[in-house]
């Protein structure tokens, strides 16, 4: 049965010349799990909002969206609200009340559901998601992953037929993200819930979805089963680079048959087609300068006197001119580490040196004066002005000298940008401070794979100019590609540290798909490119 039909949908924001989406048509069957991907600013969030009537932005729109055969405009309020569930891009923004239990009950209250029924449904939902333990807590105390689960649960409690999610895993650590996807798959199978989600990290989600859709500049260019779509976008590297590692390896080599999607499928594909006479690539030699840019020794920090230590015995040395990636679970204290390094919080014990000088010795904010700059996790906090242009001028940034192109965004209000565009604009502003030590907090969240690879280039170029970079990220692919060294943050300190090859081939969860795929067959191949290169060097087995 057809549950959603979008026909010739176009939309233009007020006071914008170009349409955000144009002539988009597709249908979804009941029980389908569809994934929508596409570049930053291609109109994905806009499209999703057009489907949920209450969230439709103001602007010129034409075309129709029908749900269960009826135009969404003519649905009655209650059905429109309860039958289509929407989980927003930022977990904090969706939360309305201040208690977990109340947040869960909020939707049911609005529908006028009775006390007993509400109690039963919330209790059931809380058990299904394992929310029981923090059922009574304040929403503000939850970690990012918990907030996202709560959002999902509080939408599902209204028993929607269609669930729409906008980059739900953007801020989750790799383990929480794959758990989240697994939960979605389970819902899809247990309740034949129809799911439409936008996602940039496709590694886990493409293998489980029934349909993959690609949006480019507002046009829906590809739609179909994931294998088919991958075959048809084979030559388009800017879309291809976001696909699962198995598919990328498959596309980089001579290919026959259907593309593998999972780690297991990729492994089988490699084993069947390529030998492993040469097990590893020559290691890129890692050497660091002798001069440390950031030195943290035995650092202890807690937010309030009563709370627990967030940083406990942290030791970290970043040498000048290197790119250091810090990975770790949600709420483990990565952001806090960056804050401590930039003296936004005061540590209570230990010592921090930047370029050989203690933080205290930087008087009069000279620390931030062409020495150190930080891109915060919440990039909205970076913007102060009414347009991106003013923003950059104010910071003294030269638009033309930027390593990437944001000229089409200059006249927009920073708050009107898409999630990924905000990220790029904020980075441009931070770079204008011309820091020697750059601290980045999740710079790739909300970016598609292509922009992410551009970001990698930007960081490399900065490195070539002698800038030292410390970046926190949940994106293992990004870390594997751009880092000189990676560190895993756990229990208030960095517990393991090494070059990407060592680091990722040693980890079993905090690691890339390519590394898991080639483990035991090739050594220290952590990116899809390295794996493909090894396959190529070994040559295709004959006889098949």
């Amino acid at each position, binding site marked *: 049965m057809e549950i959603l039909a979008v026909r010739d949908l176009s939309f233009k924001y*007020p*006071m914008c010349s170009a349409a955000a989406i144009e002539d988009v048509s597709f249908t979804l069957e009941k029980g389908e799990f569809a994934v929508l991907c596409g570049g930053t600013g291609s109109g994905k969030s806009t499209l999703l909002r057009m489907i949920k009537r*209450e969230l439709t*932005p*103001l602007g010129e729109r034409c075309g129709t969206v029908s749900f269960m055969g009826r135009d969404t405009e003519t649905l009655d309020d209650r059905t429109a609200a309860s039958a289509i569930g929407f989980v927003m891009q930022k977990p904090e923004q969706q939360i309305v009340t201040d208690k977990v239990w109340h947040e869960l009950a909020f939707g049911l209250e609005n529908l006028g559901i009775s006390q007993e029924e509400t109690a039963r449904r919330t209790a059931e939902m809380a058990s299904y998601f394992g929310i029981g333990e923090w059922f009574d807590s304040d929403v503000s105390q939850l970690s990012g992953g918990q907030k996202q689960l709560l959002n999902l649960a509080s939408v599902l409690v209204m028993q929607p037929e269609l669930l729409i999610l906008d980059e739900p895993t953007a801020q989750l650590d790799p383990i929480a993200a794959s758990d989240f996807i697994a939960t979605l798959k389970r819902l899809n199978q247990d309740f034949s819930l129809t799911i439409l989600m936008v996602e940039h990290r496709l590694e886990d989600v493409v293998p489980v979805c029934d349909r993959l859709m690609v949006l480019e500049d507002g046009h829906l260019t590809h739609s179909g089963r994931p294998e088919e779509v991958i075959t048809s976008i084979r030559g388009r590297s800017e879309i291809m680079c976001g696909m699962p590692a198995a598919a990328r390896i498959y596309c980089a080599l001579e290919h026959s048959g259907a593309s593998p999607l999972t780690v297991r499928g990729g492994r089988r594909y490699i084993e069947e087609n390529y030998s492993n006479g040469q097990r590893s690539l020559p290691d890129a030699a890692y050497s660091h300068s002798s001069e440390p840019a950031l030195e943290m020794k035995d650092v202890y920090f807690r937010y309030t006197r009563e709370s627990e230590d967030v940083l406990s015995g942290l030791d970290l040395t970043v040498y000048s001119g290197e790119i250091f990636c810090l990975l770790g679970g949600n709420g483990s204290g990565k952001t806090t580490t960056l804050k401590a390094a930039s003296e936004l919080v005061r540590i209570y014990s230990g010592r921090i040196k930047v370029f050989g000088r203690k933080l205290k010795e930087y008087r009069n904010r000279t620390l931030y004066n062409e020495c150190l700059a930080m891109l915060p996790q919440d990039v909205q906090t970076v913007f102060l002005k*009414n347009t991106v242009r003013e923003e950059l001028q104010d910071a003294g940034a030269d638009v033309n000298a930027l390593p990437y192109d944001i000229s089409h965004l200059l006249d927009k*209000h920073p708050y*009107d940008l898409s999630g990924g565009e905000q990220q790029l604009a904020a980075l441009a502003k931070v770079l204008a401070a011309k820091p020697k030590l750059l601290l980045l907090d999740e710079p790739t969240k909300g970016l598609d794979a292509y922009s992410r690879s551009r970001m990698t280039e930007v960081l490399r170029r900065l490195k070539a100019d002698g800038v030292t970079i410390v970046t926190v990220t949940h994106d293992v692919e990004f870390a594997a590609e751009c880092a000189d060294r990676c560190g895993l943050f756990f229990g208030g300190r960095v517990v393991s540290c090494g070059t990407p090859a060592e680091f990722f081939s040693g980890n079993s969860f905090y690691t890339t798909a390519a590394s898991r795929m080639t483990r035991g067959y090739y050594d220290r191949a952590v990116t899809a490119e390295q794996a493909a290169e090894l396959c190529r060097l070994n040559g295709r087995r004959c006889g098949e």
Partner: protein
Amino acid sequence: MIVIRSKELRSFIKVVVPFAAVPALVTAGALVFDHNKHIIISMGVAIMALLVFASGYERKNTGTRREVIAAIMTALCFAGRFIPLLKPVAALTIISGIYLGGETGFLVGAMSAVLSNIYFGQGPWTAFQMLAWGLIGLIAGYLSEPLKKSRILLIVYGAVSGIAYSFIMDIWTVLWYNRGFSIKLYLAALQTAIPYTLSYVLSNVLFLYLLGKPFGEKLQRIKVKYGV
């Protein structure tokens, strides 16, 4: 949010409630006042303010957005009352009235009074403050067009409303003191209140001068972007 469908009823409410019903209630409250009734009077005014707010629009789907924006402006007024000496409440109410409509201005003014008085002390004056700030916001809404255009006019309106605020609050002083109205006492009260009146005028002028334009731009943007 409740939607009042009948157009006549809406325009009736818009005029009668703020200019007749609320003043009557407030005056009556002050005259027959005894210790605990003022809470009831304030609640009554609050509900009427909501009614005025509801009468301000006909379409339903922007209701919640307007509610939230009203709540935000109210929160800002509340926070603003902590500034020593100079109070931006009236200025923010005026801005709300101009850009979001007089009905919203009325609600913001009235709600700021009840809400901030939780902290600054509730009393029989609360209802008068609600009325005074509410009317200042409502009338700003009526004058929205000219006030948007001319900054000077805006500042003049601010000054006038500072004086008007004093005039209204002194009615309370007299009613409270005298259990009835006396023009002589009223004039005397106005005279003794001159320093306060001046500070109201100064606050309004200053904050409208500083905040008028930037706030206006922000609210205007929200209006265009979200159709509030």
